[in-house]
């Protein structure tokens, strides 16, 4: 992460001996196939080591590929729309049965024009709903994870380092936020804020609702990161390298940003990678109580919610978005695991 290796030791969350051991053992023990590196002892930063470990991890590679493909599909949604010529809100009701409004044909109406079939009821193209729905869901999940993590890290570092009244106050705020029921707040706040900004006849842009959901997630989910970071900082702030920095006359800013922060990146990155899938599923849950993304904005969470009841009548309709979110969440979790292993090899072995 950081290349200013003035003091190589402090970069590792462990003690100096371990860091040195890792530096020496790693290239030879774990990379017997590369003779060049085995001979020469190459100095590498912990960041480079983590990257190497990550690259060698097959699970990480696989999950990264899944995530990249998903991201590309989501980003290229308008392109896919152009290619297929089908908009996500187009309704092909003539291709539904009159009785029960199920898609005509095999496997939920899969055909050349509709590669993943049609939704029962409204007759919309599942592929386009899925592609645009992914977009909404990933945007919400990523934005919320980034914002909540940023808040969490800042609050946690300040709280952990500050001691005294500031730390107590920050801890109280964290406890207060944790005690606040998320769902009830979301149920109460989202419609009220909408009414504050829009008149009864105004068209509320989809981006506003999406922004509200991101904000709600961010407001309630920084606490875990903040607690984690605060704990880490408390355990680090008495270390010798911090003492040394302080003795050398480093200011608080330098100690926080240059000495402490680089040492807590590992758990923070893992939190982000675990938060994203949690937000995807939570966003789906919001759709269950009607404060999620509203029609006609496509949304993966709502799609899953609507499709569950069709499990037996039109299994493909349940299967496709279900498998999509399953793969997505699995890939994020596996990637998060691998990332944790790579950043902190001791924890898994």
């Amino acid at each position: 992460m950081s290349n200013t290796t003035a003091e190589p030791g402090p970069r590792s969350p462990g003690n100096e001996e371990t860091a040195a051991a890792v530096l020496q053992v790693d290239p030879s023990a774990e990379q017997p196939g590369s003779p060049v590196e085995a001979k020469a002892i190459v100095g590498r930063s912990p960041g480079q080591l983590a990257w190497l470990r990550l690259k060698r991890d097959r699970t990480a590679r696989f999950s990264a590929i899944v995530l990249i493909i998903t991201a590309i599909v989501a980003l290229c949604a308008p392109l896919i729309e152009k290619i297929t010529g089908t908009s996500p809100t187009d309704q092909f009701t003539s291709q539904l049965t009159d009785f029960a409004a199920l898609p005509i044909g095999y496997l939920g109406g899969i055909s050349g024009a509709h590669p993943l079939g049609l939704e029962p009821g409204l007759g919309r193209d599942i592929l386009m709903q899925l592609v645009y729905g992914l977009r909404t869901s990933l945007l919400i999940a990523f934005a919320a994870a980034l914002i909540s993590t940023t808040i969490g890290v800042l609050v946690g570092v300040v709280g952990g380092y500050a001691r005294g009244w500031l730390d107590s106050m920050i801890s109280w705020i964290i406890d207060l936020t944790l005690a606040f029921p998320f769902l009830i707040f979301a149920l109460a706040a989202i419609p009220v804020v909408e009414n504050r900004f829009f008149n009864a006849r105004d068209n509320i842009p989809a981006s506003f609702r999406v922004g509200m959901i991101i904000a709600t997630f961010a407001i309630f989910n920084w606490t875990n990161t903040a607690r984690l970071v605060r704990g880490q900082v408390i355990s680090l702030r008495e270390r010798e390298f911090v003492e040394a920095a302080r003795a050398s006359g480093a200011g608080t800013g330098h100690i926080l940003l240059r000495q402490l922060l680089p040492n807590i990146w590992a758990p923070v990155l893992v939190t982000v990678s675990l938060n994203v899938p949690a937000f995807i599923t939570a966003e789906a849950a919001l759709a269950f109580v009607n404060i999620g993304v509203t029609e006609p904005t496509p949304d993966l969470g709502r799609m899953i919610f609507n499709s569950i009841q069709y499990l037996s009548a039109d299994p493909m309709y349940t299967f496709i978005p279900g498998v999509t979110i399953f793969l997505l969440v699995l890939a994020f979790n596996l990637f998060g695991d691998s990332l944790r292993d790579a950043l902190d090899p001791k924890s898994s072995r």
Partner: protein
Amino acid sequence: MRLKIGALGVGVLTVALVASGCSKTTDDSDSSGGDKAVNVQAGAISYDAADNKAPAPAVDGGQKGGNLGVFLPDGFEHLDPARAYVNVAQMADQLLVRTLTGYREDGKGNLKVIGDLATDPGTDVNKDCKVWQFKLRPGIKYEDGTPVTSKDVAYGVARSFSPDLSEGPHYIQQWLTDKGADYNADYKGPYNGGAALPPGVTTPDDQTIVFTFAKPHCDMPYAATLTTTAPVPAAQDKKTDYDRRPFSSGPYKIKSYQLGNSLVLERNTNWDANTDPLRTALPDTFTFNFTLQADAVNERLIADAPADQSFLGWQDVQPAQLAKTTTPDVKARVLEGPTQYVWYYYINTQRIKDLNVRKALNYAIDKDAVLKAIGGTPAGTPATTLLSPTVAGYQKYDAFNAPATGDAAKVKELLGSTPPPALVLAYANTPPRAAQAEAARKSLEAAGFQVTTKSIDPTNYYTEVGRKDNPYDIYLGGWGSDWPDPGTVIPPLFDGRQITPTGNQNLSYFNEQSVNTEIDRIGTLPSASDRAAAWAALDKKIMTDFAPVVPAYYDGAYTLVGSKVGNAFDSSAFGWPGLINVYVKP
């Protein structure tokens, strides 16, 4: 009455994934394609002595005994006859209490109003529909063996004036006081020192009750079928607590009632079949189960396990479950047909003043898509009229001859160069209504309208759109007749003089002098068949000349019964299967 939100509830489905994914779905429409056979109501009020004779005609193959079960997802809001207004409560009350008149149905759609407590559907004393006299049958007893008297009927009407018991129908109360919605401004029922007899009601002797109205109300035999006229002995009246245990004058009495869980009825041994022209009362007990969600009810009825075979469901089959009801053994147990409800897209005429725009909306909305969004043909059939086919005098017509899928070209032709107005479409925020709103939005936008959709909390939906100054242009609403006569449809929905600041039922806020006067004129026509024909003509005139609504679809009932339930059929009066003549097959 009856506004309808649509009880398409949402529950979590826990069924095994059946291997139906690889079969081809085809659109045979064998089950319900084309025009369904609709039994148009003659709406007969029968004074024929043979019709009014007790006991009730025997049920073919009817068997005495057994326990008949009813699955009802949310239970009853009220069972107190003064407060029961929802169809399920009125149908359950038919087992518990008797009313002055009642419906005899034969299961083929024929419906007759005959005397129940009374010996006939009421005597129009002066032939001006203002004074109605009912003579009670002799020998009718309550569950404790005391005789039912006309004073108890009068007391039942009196207590229905109480502001504490205001949830029920208010036809008779309003007719008696002639004060419209302020019917209980002066007389507030027998409580707190009020008179035991409401204004306009007299009981010359224990067997006779006379209602005197200021204006003619020829619908009195129909209105008397409502539970307003159920007898309540003053000694048994527990005010609001009466809801928990109405005192039985019918064939069954309450054995146990646990709110939100179950209601068990057992026989009232003092009920005598020879005094009752309507009820055969064959099962020994009735058990109402309130614990299951809508989808669970129908999963159980589809599976037809032995314990559920004598149950019927007061719950339409959910769209996602419809495909499972097509196998022959399940299909045979489906009760399907039109209900008294019609769903309209009300056009707020205060905002959309241009007739051409309202006509254009009638062409623009894709009724087929709106129906398919909630399951297609089982949910209903596209509508063109204001009156439901189950209502007396219904005349099929189509003022616009628009295809059910809409006609965007015709919209452009009608609108010409005037730009279509921006529309705000409001909907109750439940998944089926949201899907319907999306279907309607798409078809309106395809026709050139700019549409903003607004979701409203479902429990507040009718309150919101019922405010006169509501900010919306177009919204879906269902309306069902209180009795199969257009007099309970057109006046509440299209009489402009009934518009109030809040709580409106005239959701188009349609106020047209010529229609108002015609409503008054029809109300005074003495002959029922003349009235029915005049209502049908007015129905057509409103749609052709003013188009204040888009008739969307005639509501369809699609419920299931267990394989051991006999003589279950959709009641023309209540929409769902009635209970008074069902039996349990051995």
